[in-house]
């Protein structure tokens, strides 16, 4: 009769274990999972109290996570404690260190009677098991005092070990789901940031006297460190620049926003591009204490005289393209280049003047164009840029170059932000 009762009890607990598995499969977040784990551990072992400690791999300690005790008042005392257990310390620490379960009966000297004295709870028997996933320690589960017997037995231990296995899978699953949700939240924020960054791009002006401007930028990952702007001044001059903040993503985009706003205000007060770069450099050296730097090529174009004043801070040199009968001649404008902005204080930049003649284009590029990788990991390179432009049939050349780079990168994610700014005079 006794054997039959024990067998029925075991069957009932196994059913509970199966139900626990089904329930755990529906849990999606760790905060929701832990209280449920605690309750289930108590149910399958028919115990009065239960606690779960999670392993902190950084500090190499167990951290108390949650406790439940059906004796009024006791669990609350435990929950208020924010304590850690060293590996090897006490029963929980030993289980975590050896990854071996412990069963204690009423007279076991390993039970800490000081804790009993502090909480008013008398521990008769205790089970403590590791929660593992693929041999990785996630925590320990501990149950105290069986409801219907004096002491836990080997069957109880096996049930709790099986439960700990299910708990390990559920915890890993919850962590993965939490990470996925976090990633999704981050994606939504990045998409919003990308829209804001797009809004910073200028509306390109209609120029007089057969002059035109075209520009495009594409971020490699939502938001980027490339940017351009086009600022019309009251005296008819146009300040245009291309800038590339080292790095990618949100950090680079935020620095880019600071550059954008300062450049707008400097362009209205400073006439010379070299002075603008100098002042912007001072601001960035003072403000950016991290390792970010910015390359900038700036062109101030007088739409009346077609004089172009250029200054360069570590950026790719601009290209001048002249249309010919069979295609185009392409040359790099060899203007003196200074250090990128944000690295060294007290720098001076040199200005260089050229004239944009009829039928000529000026192209400002970012290195995402020349360093675009193909599916075979090959760089697009400066030679391909020049070849493509030489064989293009007239301005604007920018869209043709961007199209050529797109074809080069077909089927592979972009490895860098890509930007082209072009202005040209009709022939």
């Amino acid at each position, binding site marked *: 009769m006794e054997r039959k009762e024990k067998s029925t009890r075991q069957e009932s607990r196994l059913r509970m274990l199966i139900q626990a598995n089904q329930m755990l499969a529906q849990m999606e977040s760790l905060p929701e999972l832990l209280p449920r784990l605690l309750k289930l551990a108590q149910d399958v072992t028919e115990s009065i109290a239960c606690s779960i400690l999670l392993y902190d791999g950084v500090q190499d300690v167990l951290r108390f996570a949650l406790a439940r005790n059906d004796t009024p008042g006791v669990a609350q005392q435990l929950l208020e404690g924010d304590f850690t257990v060293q590996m090897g310390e006490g029963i929980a620490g030993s289980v975590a260190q050896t990854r071996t379960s412990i069963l204690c009966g009423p007279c076991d000297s390993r039970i800490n009677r000081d804790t009993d004295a502090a909480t008013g709870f008398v521990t008769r028997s205790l089970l403590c098991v590791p929660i593992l996933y693929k041999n990785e320690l996630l925590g320990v589960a501990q149950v105290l005092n069986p409801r219907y017997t004096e002491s836990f037995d080997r069957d109880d231990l096996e049930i709790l070990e099986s439960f700990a296995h299910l708990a390990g899978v559920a915890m890993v699953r919850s962590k993965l789901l939490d990470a996925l949700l976090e990633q999704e939240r981050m994606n939504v924020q990045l998409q919003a940031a990308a829209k804001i960054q797009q809004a910073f791009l200028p509306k390109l002006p209609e120029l007089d006297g057969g002059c035109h401007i075209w520009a495009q930028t594409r971020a490699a990952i939502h938001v980027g460190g490339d940017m351009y702007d086009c600022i019309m001044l009251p005296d008819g001059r146009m300040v245009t620049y291309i800038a590339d903040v080292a*790095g990618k993503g949100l950090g680079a985009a935020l620095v880019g926003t600071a550059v954008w706003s300062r450049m707008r205000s400097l362009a209205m007060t400073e006439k010379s591009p070299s002075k603008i770069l100098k002042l912007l450099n001072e601001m960035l050296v003072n403000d950016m204490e991290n390792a970010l730097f910015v390359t900038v090529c700036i062109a101030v174009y007088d739409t009346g005289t077609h004089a172009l004043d250029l200054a360069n801070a570590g950026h790719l040199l601009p290209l001048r393209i002249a249309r010919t009968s069979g295609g185009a001649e392409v040359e790099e404008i060899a203007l003196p280049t200074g250090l990128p902005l944000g690295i060294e204080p007290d720098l001076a930049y040199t200005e260089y003047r050229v004239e944009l003649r009829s039928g000529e284009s000026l192209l400002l590029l970012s290195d995402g164009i020349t360093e675009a990788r193909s599916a075979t990991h090959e760089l697009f390179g400066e030679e391909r840029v020049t070849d493509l432009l030489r064989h293009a049939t007239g301005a604007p050349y920018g869209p043709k170059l961007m199209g050529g780079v797109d074809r080069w990168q077909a089927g592979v994610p972009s490895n*860098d932000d890509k930007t082209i700014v072009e202005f040209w005079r009709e022939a």
Partner: protein
Amino acid sequence: MMAKDIWTARNADDALILGGEIDYSVTPDVRELLLKAVRESNGTFRLSLGDVHYLDSSGLAVLIETRRILMMDGRELKVTDASPQVRKLFSLTQVGILFGM
């Protein structure tokens, strides 16, 4: 098909030698290694980039940060060797002078 070169690092008698491709996908690891090497060394920090086949702007940013940290300690970063690609980048951005090149 060209494959991406894994970045490498090894210690020689007089310099830390980096190799392979250093782009934004590996710069956090390169940064950690460089800053650790800086902490564990004294005097001028010598770095060989002769085997670096590709260095992008985020890699360059790590070198500039390393130099800044050394300078705060009264030390300097000396690049003892550079591959043609790295030399071209140093020349384009004018930063070679910061590393004694």
